[in-house]
């Protein structure tokens, strides 16, 4: 395989890789691990583990409600993490950051809270939808940004509509004004397809949605880990993402919401720490972000996520993006050079992120994945939680390689070699 190119010297370098101990592992009888599944979940650098561990062994206690020094310290760490995340994604103020259990929980929060506005009077009424109202999604959504809206429609009687996809793996924008209309209450779309890599024109569609008074919910799961984000500038109303895809821990996600909207949005999960006053027969609720953080939050995970944000910031998000896109270019080039291999997604790095899904003629993706795994190359196979997208392109599954800050050009070459090897294996028997 002739895959040669310049990759930012720092990322993917030995120095960066040394921060991720799991990369030293071998699999399947001594093969070096080639981890190309970072789009599903990323590995965690030692500094993130250390930050969490230090916090736990030195400052851990219940946040927000203690009357002792440890509780004060824990609260300060927790709120410090909120501020770090806010800066990282361009929130207008830390209070726009709500810590949740993950992106799926964040998106469900929005959908359920909108549903809880049903019958509301006053400011919350703008979130309510019912028969005659429309929620618009796209055919490239991850199930996490599709099924909650299906369920909201089922509960409220609103109608679900969606932007289709074109044969060249883009959103079909031929009838934007027919899709986003005065009946539109919500536009929920991904910032970057986790299969195709496609970047939809979020800013334009947000502007179109705002012109008709609709709210915009961005699934930023795939875009936050790879590039600098400025949600305030993008003007989306809500954005959701997960810690575990951005070098942080599982068990934590974020919902970033415009504060003025959060202020009037009804609560979703209820319980401790989100209430103002509780009587047996009714309760009142705190302002955001507390209103949306019922119960004990993912405290130590927030601290770890803060450390992940620091790490990414130190690397520089422009470098992170450049590195991911260089590897993407190499993978697109290397894979499509193999006869019988086709890319499920745009063939160039234009308006595209670093998810490279592909199909191998005559070999089911699961079998491709198996052979790759045997060669030490870890990719994901299946529908990647985007089943309608796969159906649209007439397949039930694909194989997908995704990259992290620790991924290298050599690993891309190993991927391409392994795919060629899989072809040879099945052809030869």
């Amino acid at each position: 395989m002739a895959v040669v190119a310049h990759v930012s010297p720092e990322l993917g370098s030995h120095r960066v890789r040394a921060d991720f101990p799991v990369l030293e592992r071998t699999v399947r009888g001594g093969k070096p691990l080639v981890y190309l599944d970072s789009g599903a979940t990323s590995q965690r650098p030692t500094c993130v583990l250390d930050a969490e561990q230090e916090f736990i062994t030195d400052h851990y206690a219940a946040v927000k409600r203690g009357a002792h020094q440890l509780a004060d310290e824990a609260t300060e760490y927790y709120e410090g993490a909120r501020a770090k995340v806010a800066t990282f994604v361009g929130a207008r103020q830390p209070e726009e950051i709500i810590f949740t259990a993950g992106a799926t929980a964040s998106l469900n929060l929005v959908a359920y809270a909108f549903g809880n506005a049903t019958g509301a009077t006053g400011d919350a009424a703008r979130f309510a939808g019912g028969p005659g109202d429309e929620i618009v999604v796209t055919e490239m959504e991850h199930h996490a940004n599709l099924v909650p809206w299906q369920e909201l429609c089922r509960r409220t009687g609103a109608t679900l509509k969606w932007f289709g996809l074109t044969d060249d793996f883009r959103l079909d924008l031929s009838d934007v004004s027919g899709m986003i209309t005065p009946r539109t209450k919500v536009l929920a779309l991904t910032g970057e397809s986790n299969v195709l890599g496609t970047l939809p024109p979020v800013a334009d569609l947000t502007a179109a949605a705002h012109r008709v008074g609709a709210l915009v919910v961005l699934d930023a799961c795939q875009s936050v880990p790879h590039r600098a984000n400025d949600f305030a500038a993008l003007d989306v109303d809500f954005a959701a993402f997960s810690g575990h895809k951005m070098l942080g821990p599982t068990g934590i996600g974020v919902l970033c919401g415009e504060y003025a909207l959060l202020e009037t949005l009804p609560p979703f999960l209820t319980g401790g720490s989100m209430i103002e006053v509780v009587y047996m027969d009714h309760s009142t609720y705190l302002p955001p972000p507390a209103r949306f953080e019922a119960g004990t939050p993912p405290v130590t995970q927030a601290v770890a996520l803060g450390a992940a944000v620091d790490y990414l910031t130190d690397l520089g998000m422009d470098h992170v993006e450049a590195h991911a896109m260089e590897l993407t270019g190499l993978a697109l080039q290397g894979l499509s050079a193999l006869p019988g291999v086709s890319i499920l997604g745009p063939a160039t790095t234009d308006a595209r992120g670093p998810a490279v899904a592909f199909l191998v003629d005559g070999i089911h993706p699961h079998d491709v994945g198996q052979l790759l795994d045997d060669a030490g190359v870890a990719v994901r196979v299946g529908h990647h939680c985007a089943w309608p997208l796969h159906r649209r392109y007439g397949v039930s599954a694909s194989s997908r390689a995704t990259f992290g800050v620790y991924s290298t050009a050599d690993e891309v070459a190993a991927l391409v070699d392994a795919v060629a090897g899989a072809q040879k294996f099945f052809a030869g028997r």
Partner: protein
Amino acid sequence: MRMDDLYAEIILDHSRAPHHAGLREPFDAQTHQVNPTCGDEVTLRLAVQRGEDGGLAVQDVSFDALGCSISQASVSVMTDLVIGESLAHAQKMLAAFEAMITSKGADPGDENLLGDAVAFAGVAQYPNRVKCALLGWKAFKLAAAQAEVGAT
């Protein structure tokens, strides 16, 4: 090489030219199974008849399947095994196959009972392929249950 074991020749043969593929009439039960993680599916039809001993026997099995070589070959091998057998014996094979495939390698499978299906013993080493190998068998299990209910 491990892959040669997993993808034994008999498995590749069946996956390339599955036996009893294509849905056929008549049938007494039809089931549909999907593997939600990878989107593989199988539709399976079962025709039964009353045997000499009064019990039900498998007269015919046919299927339409979309999926990886393991799932395709597995359902194909199964049809060879169960057609012509009593339903009771087929269910015994089913249980033995499931035990083998979920044993993480501890159970190599009883060749007397499972015949060619022991070729799938290697799948037990790959937890995420277990569902592939079981897809068709689960469809058969459900169809058999339906047919039993229908016949009483």
